[in-house]
């Protein structure tokens, strides 16, 4: 019998609102797609604002009522319908809300809302604004699905959905060939990870019989450990590609080709952290596979350093931020690898705040200096745009992790502490990364905002851009106060929130680590000041082959190009006509040739014909002998 899809509309408010959280942006997107750009810009922005506002509102309400509700420590399950059911395999489209997904949902919807408001102003004059927001809202919907879905396969829908939107948005200004190429690159590289993710799911589904995350977490530990390890490695591979971790990081810097709000939303605040979120959700399984965890930590560790090194020599403001994103994601992976789920999630949240802020500020700058992105062509913007300067400074401080006053400080300290727990090498490397971070971001700050004018800024950032920046500035500072080490203040709001899901916060460490961790950013800022403080001569980027390599992502791009892309393409072009086809042509030619030969027997000379008859007879007589 045809099973009737089990649409269980929850009786509770949360269960009703949760699908709506996803549906709001989705509907906006569909409306924008169907109207096909015929809506005026104002209507579009209003629609987007309303849709996203509702989305964020629903998210907040449902979060509130969940936390105050009866099962706030557990999870709330909303089954929408049976997706597919073949044999004993079932996949459902179901949403589940627990404290982890709640945090992520809030980040996505609220930060998303802010960025979209900002984008309304940023993109107002673009003729394709409707398309832009169609993609953006679709992205938010996909991201929310990724966050809320209860079944890994449904997570994968969101996972690929955000990938597609990312592709579409990177290539939003498709008129430039380079943008479209960058978009394709981003999609294909993350697709490598997606394939690994898919394989991991197949493995888990076969081993466990379901992809439902609660079931996975419950039944998964009983699976053979090799299976589990392999599965975790595969999922880690998928997560890494999405989060632009070494060695699958090459797409992220190129992804800056998209409009800046895109970079803020997708390539800083939300999508790239999906991997972190996924691993955190599966931490129950992850923790059982030390090899995968170690690999995760190493990947994070390497990425921190490589990306920070690259960021140090970039000239494009957005690329600096892109590398910094990679580097910061590296911290999260390091934390995950070290089993510090809280730390990873906390850094995820604070990073979302300050990196979105940085991108918005950078976007404002770019918009006001005629789409100039080279920092060496800017300068002295401090006076032209004081508010943007302030916002950027706050973001930079948080990124650098200036002690006490920034959100980044607290989240980073949490990671450093847990890294030290696992290995001092991790700790030292991460610390060095933090040092580099403060250098490169303040290099950017000093070059862009101090010194003489090298470009002319115009206009003002409107309210729609300023307000989100202001809110995020506050969050970039105050967000950290949710969770403080005992040495400073006994505030554990964040870890308490997540503990029911992620387990208790591990033991804290002495203050010595904390002090070292606090001094390093300050040292970095000082060095940056000595190197790039305003001088009479305009600063120029240092040039040497080594630096060029560093700037080009340590040569990863070239390497991949040489060993993967080019051989693949060259061979494909060589074989464009398909050698198998040629083989059939050969057969055809043989047929034709033998036909010619046989036809040539008919020389028209009757003697020869008779000769063949006689020869045939002789041959047949030979059979008889």
């Amino acid at each position, binding site marked *: 019998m045809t099973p009737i899809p089990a649409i269980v509309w929850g009786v509770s408010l949360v269960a009703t609102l949760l699908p709506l959280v996803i549906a709001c942006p989705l509907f906006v997107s569909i409306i924008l797609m169907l109207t096909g750009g015929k809506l005026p810009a104002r209507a579009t922005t209003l629609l987007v604002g309303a849709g996203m506002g509702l989305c964020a509102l629903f998210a907040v309400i449902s979060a509130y009522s969940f936390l105050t509700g009866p099962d706030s420590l557990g999870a709330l399950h909303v089954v929408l319908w049976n997706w597919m059911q073949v044999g004993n395999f079932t996949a459902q489209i179901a949403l589940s809300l627990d404290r982890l997904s709640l945090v992520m949902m809030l980040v996505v919807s609220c930060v998303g809302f802010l960025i979209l408001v900002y984008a309304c102003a940023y993109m107002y004059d673009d003729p394709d604004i409707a398309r832009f927001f169609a993609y953006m809202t679709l992205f938010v919907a996909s991201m929310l699905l990724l966050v809320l879905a209860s079944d890994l396969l449904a997570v994968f829908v969101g996972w690929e959905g955000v990938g597609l939107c990312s592709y579409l948005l990177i290539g939003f200004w498709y008129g430039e060939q380079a943008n479209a190429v960058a978009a394709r690159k981003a999609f294909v590289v993350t697709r490598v990870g997606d394939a690994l993710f898919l394989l991991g799911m197949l493995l888990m589904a076969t081993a466990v019989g379901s992809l439902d995350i609660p079931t996975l977490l419950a039944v998964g530990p009983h699976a053979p450990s090799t299976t589990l390890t392999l599965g975790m490695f595969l999922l880690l591979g998928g997560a890494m590609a999405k989060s632009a971790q070494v060695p699958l990081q090459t797409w992220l810097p190129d992804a800056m080709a998209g409009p800046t709000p895109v970079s803020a939303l997708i390539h800083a605040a939300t999508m790239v952290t999906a991997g972190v979120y996924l691993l955190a959700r599966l931490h129950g399984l992850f923790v059982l596979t030390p090899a995968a965890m170690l690999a995760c930590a190493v990947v994070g560790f390497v990425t921190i350093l490589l990306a920070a090194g690259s960021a140090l020599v970039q000239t494009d403001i957005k690329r600096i931020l892109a590398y910094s994103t990679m580097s910061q994601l590296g911290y999260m992976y390091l934390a995950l690898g070290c089993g510090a789920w809280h730390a990873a999630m906390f850094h995820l949240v604070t990073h979302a705040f300050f990196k979105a802020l940085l991108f918005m500020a950078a976007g404002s700058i770019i918009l006001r200096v005629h789409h100039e992105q080279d920092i060496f062509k800017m300068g002295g913007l401090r006076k032209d745009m004081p508010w943007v300067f302030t916002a950027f400074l706050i973001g930079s401080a948080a990124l650098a992790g200036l002690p006490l006053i920034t959100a980044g400080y607290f989240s980073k300290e949490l990671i450093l502490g847990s890294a030290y727990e696992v290995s001092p090498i991790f700790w030292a490397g991460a610390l060095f990364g933090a040092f580099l971070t403060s250098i490169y971001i303040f290099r950017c700050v000093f070059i862009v905002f101090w010194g003489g004018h090298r470009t002319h800024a115009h206009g003002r950032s409107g309210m729609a851009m300023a307000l989100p920046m202001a809110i995020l500035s506050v969050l970039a500072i105050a967000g950290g106060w949710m969770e403080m080490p005992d040495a400073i203040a006994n505030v554990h709001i964040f870890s308490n929130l997540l503990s029911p899901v992620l387990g208790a916060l591990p033991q804290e460490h002495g203050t010595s680590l904390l002090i070292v961790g606090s001094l390093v950013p300050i040292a970095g800022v000082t060095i940056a000041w000595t190197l790039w403080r305003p001088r009479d001569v305009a600063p120029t980027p240092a040039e040497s082959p080594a630096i060029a390599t560093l700037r080009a992502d340590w040569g990863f791009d070239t390497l991949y190009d040489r060993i993967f892309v080019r051989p693949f393409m060259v061979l494909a072009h060589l074989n464009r006509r398909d050698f198998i086809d040629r083989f059939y042509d050969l057969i055809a030619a043989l047929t034709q040739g033998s036909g010619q030969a046989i036809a040539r027997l008919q020389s028209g000379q009757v*003697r020869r014909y008779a*000769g063949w008859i*006689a*020869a045939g*007879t*002789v041959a047949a*007589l*030979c059979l*008889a*002998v």
Partner: protein
Amino acid sequence: MNIVLELYGLIAIGATALAITRTIPVHGLLYLVVSLLALACMFDELGAPFAAMLEIIVYAGAIIVLFVFVVMMINLGQPDQLREKGWFAGGAWIGPGVIAALLMGLLVYGTQRSTMAVGTAGTPIGPQQVGLTLYGPYILTVELSSFLLLAGLVSAYHIGRRIGGKS
């Protein structure tokens, strides 16, 4: 063994070999007549006097004469003879020679293995016996053979007739 039969056979073979190698058609035809006469003698030896007579009368007498007529009508001259000679140059013989030799070898090999007992042979099958058989069980084939000849007649008549502008 019958020496006479062998002798006639040798004559027939020799004459035939000469007949097919002549350059002048009339010479060839004359050797063919010799061959046919030798064959007729063989028929007689084999106890078929009626067939021997027919061989001489119809074959040598009628068919070969037909050939002679045609040779006369076509009237081939000296150049043709020279050309015929040229065609016999060495290489032309190899292929046909090999095939014919193989054919002969295989068939002789086959017939040699046959142990043909001489049954009631020796008593000739005279014209009367042939006549009775021909007009007895085979009467219908006689009837049919008339249509064979009719077909040959009509064909030859039509082909030989001039049609079109030249007439």
